[in-house]
């Protein structure tokens, strides 16, 4: 028997729209229609898809035996009929309904947040022959129509101070169709009548078509260009973009990133990388945008995509790292040694030092007892970090790689010696050492390079602490922090000789790491005061 009218309170929606990746639809929970019948009730939500299928779809959660059973109701309406639905104008639904049970739908994503104020209305549904209705309860047992008359209760649910007009109703009877008008104001003196066959059949099926207003997802989608909309046909990207938008509350930044990812995909077709960027954006839109900007600035070249992929892999395993920092300090991002630097901006030494032809002799500007050996606690185990810790002993830090005038790239495997940079770099070294400033330099010591996206040559970093001349020529003395042993790291035999004919600066280190290796200086990095 249909119960009396109830008033219900449902919990407030925290997330107004729920995107379901399994079924690739969005449930708009801004509004819902609640229909109750005794202990039974159903919740009807408007469902839509970014890529419009021109169908009216509703998610119906049907409460039965203490559990919601989800189903998708698909209405094949014409534009005119959709307008009728929006205006609450009833019409016959015969052959316009299809129902699909959603066995894999997580009901909790929608139901757990529902807290709305509802009002309810008792309504009566005529039979499909329109011979039995609210006007002749006593004759209902005689009805022979396919769809018997029903009396149901519709609750108008307000979750957002917007009332859903529950005064017009439909009976969704999949495969049969049905429906009809009713009197929303009819409040009968309930006769002792149990609709019998009607209500059990209706369990899980009591609903009405429901269309809601455009949502942020739809608004976002409508802003896209045709090409960008076509990207939304790629399901993995569509699901990623929708998640990013939802998790970031449709912020302008997240919408911009989503559009940029679309553009990136249009140009490159690189689904994997686009998806990785979106994955990062779920938790860090800013870093994701920095990566997409980097790719754009690099013309989305293959090399930039490869490097971006490396950065994304790094960020995924090192949460909290800053994508922009890595991108701006690429030379120190060493996939083998995890050399992610942390430059401080500003305080740059922009002096161009005058040419100084003499080769001065400078004793080590850092004493061996201040050597920072490999494994020294508190320093990340990579050569750049130990080199930085080493010059910090003298009160200095490394300057930024990318900032103009802070790095002298004197040699690469690809292009050989850059004589201008070499001359300037040597002038700087003479100035620095003569003034007690240690200098970090990069060296090539093996085939290939972990820094393939920067100079593609440097393998290792050491610290130049002195210079002089012996019977073999002019040399630079260095500390090699690749070893825990002071005697090896600061050996007087750690020398790099300058060959004025070739422009190469080469030498060997006494560390165990360097046995069998020849160091060739690739870059000279300016120091600045801590």
């Amino acid at each position, binding site marked *: 028997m249909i119960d009396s009218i109830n008033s219900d309170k449902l919990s407030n929606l925290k997330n107004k729209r729920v995107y379901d990746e399994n079924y690739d639809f969005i449930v708009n929970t801004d509004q819902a229609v609640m229909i109750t019948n005794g202990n039974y009730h159903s919740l009807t939500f408007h469902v839509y898809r970014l890529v419009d299928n021109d169908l009216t779809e509703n998610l119906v959660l049907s409460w039965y035996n203490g559990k919601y059973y989800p189903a998708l109701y698909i209405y094949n309406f014409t534009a005119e009929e959709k307008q009728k639905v929006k205006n609450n104008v009833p019409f016959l639904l015969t052959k316009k309904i299809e129902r699909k049970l959603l066995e894999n739908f997580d009901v909790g994503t929608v139901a757990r947040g529902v807290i709305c104020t509802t009002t309810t209305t008792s309504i009566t549904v005529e039979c499909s022959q329109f011979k039995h209705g609210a006007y002749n309860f006593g004759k209902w047992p005689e009805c022979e129509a396919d769809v018997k008359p029903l009396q149901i209760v519709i609750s108008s649910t307000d979750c957002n101070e917007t009332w859903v007009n529950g005064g017009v109703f439909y009976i969704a009877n999949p495969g049969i169709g049905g429906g009809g008008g009713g009197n929303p104001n009819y409040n009968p003196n309930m006769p002792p009548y149990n609709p019998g066959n009607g209500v059990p059949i209706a369990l899980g099926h009591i609903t009405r078509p429901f269309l809601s207003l455009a949502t942020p997802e739809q608004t976002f989608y409508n802003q896209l260009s045709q090409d960008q909309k076509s990207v939304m046909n790629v399901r993995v990207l569509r699901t990623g973009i929708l998640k990013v938008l939802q998790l970031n509350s449709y912020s302008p930044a997240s919408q911009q990133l989503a559009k940029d990812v679309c553009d990136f995909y249009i140009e490159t077709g690189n689904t994997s990388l686009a998806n990785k960027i979106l994955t990062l954006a779920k938790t860090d839109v800013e870093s994701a945008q920095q990566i997409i900007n980097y790719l754009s600035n690099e013309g989305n070249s293959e090399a930039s995509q490869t490097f971006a992929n490396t950065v994304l892999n790094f960020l995924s395993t090192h949460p909290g790292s800053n994508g922009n920092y890595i991108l701006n300090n690429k030379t120190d991002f060493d996939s083998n040694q995890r050399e992610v630097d942390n430059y401080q901006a500003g305080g740059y030494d922009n002096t161009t030092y005058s040419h100084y032809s003499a080769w001065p002799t400078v004793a080590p500007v850092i004493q061996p007892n201040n050597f920072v050996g490999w494994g020294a606690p508190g320093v990340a*185990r990579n*050569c750049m970090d130990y080199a930085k810790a080493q010059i910090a002993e003298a009160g200095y830090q490394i300057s930024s790689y990318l900032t103009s005038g802070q790095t002298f790239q004197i040699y690469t495997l690809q292009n050989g010696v850059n004589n201008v940079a070499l001359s300037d770099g040597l002038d700087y070294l003479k100035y620095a050492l003569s003034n007690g400033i240690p200098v970090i330099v990069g060296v090539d010591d093996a085939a290939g390079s972990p820094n393939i996206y920067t100079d593609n040559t440097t393998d290792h970093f050491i610290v130049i602490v002195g210079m002089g001349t012996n019977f073999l020529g002019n040399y630079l003395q260095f500390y090699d922090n690749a070893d825990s042993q002071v005697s090896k790291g600061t050996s007087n035999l750690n020398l790099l000789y300058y060959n004025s004919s070739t422009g190469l600066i080469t030498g060997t280190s006494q560390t165990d790491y360097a046995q069998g290796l020849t160091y060739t200086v690739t870059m000279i990095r300016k120091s600045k005061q801590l």
Partner: protein
Amino acid sequence: MHLYENSALIENSNVSITIKLKKIFCHILILVSFTSCFSQSKNNTGTIVLDVSVKSFGKTKVLPEEFYKTTTLNKEDITSAFYVTINNTLNVVAIPVNDKVFNYDYFYKNIYTADMNEKKVKLTVQQFIINDKKIYIAYEIAKWEK
């Protein structure tokens, strides 16, 4: 053989394994466990404990790609190596450290000093065969026990 030549790859390894009798049973259990765990990799020949003399602890040399493919370790996980001699030989061997599992806390508390030259320790290592050469990867260190 050159003193340091190809030190990460140990050819013709004739390293004797010192296993205390009183610990044989435990080691057998460990070996059985690891044999079981890694039986899927025919290149992984299990674990052993090496008595070594540390020459230094330092940056690891560039390792071949086959190393990472065989061991399934990431490059980020191999930053350092122990440069050691084994059984009083002169040959210095580089043993990369698996940062993911190595007991660094113990290492820093009980082993590491600014000068570890000739310090004797026990290194528990995994053995891999790559291109017919034996490679060790350190994943645990302990004090030398006489």
